[in-house]
């Protein structure tokens, strides 16, 4: 009798243990299944934090496939691993001006989307130059454009008329002259953040002329702008941050104070859905192309495209392609401003500011920049007064030669 009880107890214990183990196994299986059904995308400073900016929740939830944004501990290692053929991440998001984007294209570290009909369909919706940027030389669709950035001059039409300001077709030199001549303590605030201008001038110089073979005229042009930047640049001339306003720009401008803004240099932050949104709402603002560098040399607006590129070594390639297919389908039908800016034949006539920005993007061009180490570091050394102009130029050209030929 006693033995029977012991056997029953043993049986009960074994049963309970088996159930617990089954429960654990079930949970682990569920977790694994969940992991298998979730795509991983890295996001960090190296990639520019663009994914969650562009991928607003509506886009993430619009597809059946779940996407998890992962912040890697070591971003450089992550990129290296990814491009060495690692399968940790299924896709990533980059911008066309990053050196990494050029490296991906050069090394062929992308999955060709030619066999995804929705991808080709989406590209047909976009401006020709964006479609061209998304297509490799061999005809491969190597990326899916998802967002666009452009810099421009934002201005109040009525105020500028009052002060006789006309930005159309002007050079940065003329722009600065006009700004300098404005009344210092007038009713209106003139925001001219030289920090933005500095970045734009150097990017524009790279976009139009490059630094490889500069003629004497281009050298002098760069010299004159670099001197201006050195004289007014933000980090080194704190007081001149807002040239005509002694106050620093408040983080959140009230509607009333925004109406006093005459103009400012603005960089749209992923489809102008953040800062510029207020300008759209308040009204009265217009946008025009950034000034040119030189009279007679018209430069289209430099457009930075944020895009998705698929890891060809992804373990979940099938699922990733399913996601891309759904995403492209969704983007093709997208009626929000984000995708419309990149699309051909859109009508923004109900909002004059959006219409202006749309025109700038339509007539823009995708540009790429050298890595910071090659050009930016030398420009910075000059601006900080650590290097003479001629030495800076010589160093930039030496770095470019080394970068290209090594």
């Amino acid at each position, binding site marked *: 009798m006693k033995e029977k009880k012991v056997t029953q107890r043993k049986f009960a214990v074994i049963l309970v243990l088996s159930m617990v183990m089954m429960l654990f196994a079930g949970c682990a299986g569920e977790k694994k299944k969940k992991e298998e059904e979730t795509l991983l995308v890295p996001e960090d400073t190296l990639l520019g934090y663009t994914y969650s900016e562009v991928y607003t929740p509506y886009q993430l939830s619009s597809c059946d496939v779940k996407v998890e944004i992962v912040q890697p501990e070591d971003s450089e290692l992550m990129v*290296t691993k990814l*491009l*060495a*053929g690692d399968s940790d991440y299924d896709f990533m998001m980059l911008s066309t001006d990053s050196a990494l984007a050029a*490296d991906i294209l050069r*090394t*062929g*570290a992308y999955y060709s989307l030619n066999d995804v009909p929705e991808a080709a369909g989406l590209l047909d919706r976009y401006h020709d130059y964006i479609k061209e940027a998304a297509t490799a030389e061999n005809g491969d669709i190597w990326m899916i454009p998802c967002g666009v950035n452009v810099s421009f001059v934002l201005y109040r039409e009525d105020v500028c008329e009052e002060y006789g300001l006309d930005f159309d077709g002007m050079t940065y030199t003329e722009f600065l002259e006009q700004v300098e001549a404005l009344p210092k303590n007038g009713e209106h605030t003139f925001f001219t953040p030289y920090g933005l201008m500095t970045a734009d001038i150097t990017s524009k110089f790279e976009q139009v002329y490059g630094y490889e073979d500069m003629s004497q005229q281009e050298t002098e042009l760069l010299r004159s702008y670099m001197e201006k930047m050195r004289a007014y640049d933000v980090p080194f001339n704190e007081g001149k941050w807002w040239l005509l306003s002694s106050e620093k720009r408040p983080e959140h401008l009230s509607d009333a104070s925004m109406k006093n803004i005459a103009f400012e240099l603005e960089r749209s932050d992923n489809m102008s859905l953040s800062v510029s949104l207020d300008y759209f709402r308040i009204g009265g603002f217009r946008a025009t192309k950034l000034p040119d560098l030189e009279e007679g040399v018209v430069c289209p607006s430099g457009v930075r495209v944020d895009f998705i590129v698929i890891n*060809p*070594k992804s373990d979940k390639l099938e699922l990733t392609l399913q996601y891309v297919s759904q995403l492209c389908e969704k983007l093709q039908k997208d009626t929000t401003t984000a995708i419309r800016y990149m699309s051909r034949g859109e009508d923004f006539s109900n909002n004059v500011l959006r219409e202006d920005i749309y025109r700038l993007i339509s007539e823009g061009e995708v540009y790429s920049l050298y890595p910071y*180490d*090659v050009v930016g*570091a030398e420009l910075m050394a000059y601006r900080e007064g650590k290097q003479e102009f001629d030495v800076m130029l010589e160093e930039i050209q*030496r*770095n470019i030669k*080394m*970068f290209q*030929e*090594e």
Partner: protein
Amino acid sequence: MKRYLLKCRLLLIPSLAGLALFYVLPYVRVIYYSLIENQFSRRFVGLQNYVKVFQNEYFRLALKNSLLLIATAVPVLVVTAFLLSLLLLKMKGYWKLLRIAFIFPMLVPTASVVVVWRTLFDGSESVWPVYLLFIYKNIGLLIILLSAAFSTLEGEVYEAARLDGAYGFALHRKITLPLISPTLLFTILIGVVYSFKVFRESYLYFGTSYPPDHSYTLQYYMNNHFFKLNYQNLASAAVMTSLIVAVIVVVGVRLQKKFTV
């Protein structure tokens, strides 16, 4: 005896497995990378990558600078370490503690040393600060090795030599040098191998991936290709560098054996 040998072999298995896993297999992988078009197409291209790398102007510049570092900084490093070890050998009492001071450069992070170096040399763009930094960082290890070799020398040998009339420089030339020659050759090899690894010091000193031409070494070439994700050039350069180091080491070991006999 057989059992003993078997035990020895069994005990060797973990370290051999580690060696295979962390050194041999990655190296084989590197060789594989150097023979394919890229890691995605994986098309075999034979020695094409090697030819391309060797024809590259900057690889040749890097190779020249690396060899120049061996020819100039390594002899200075070894001779200085040798002389300082001799000097430390003669130190008595608390002065013996001085040898600890030479170990400090190995412990101090290179980044901190570079800050001092930049101040000391006023950010000079010449090659000498980097050479001196290389000597400063590695001299401690060489002093330890040479001091250990000196400490094994027996006093009777010197006494006998002195009785035979050998003093001062002649004593070291005739007695010390031949006796410690295996260690000396070993330190030279260490110096050569370490000179191929000079990068961090130079990178931190110049603060860029594109240093002045005279300081552009093989490590820069490989590092830049690593960041450009050009693994084929990187792998080919790495294999060539390791072959050069291997040749130097083999020659060194042969010489070492010759001197030991």
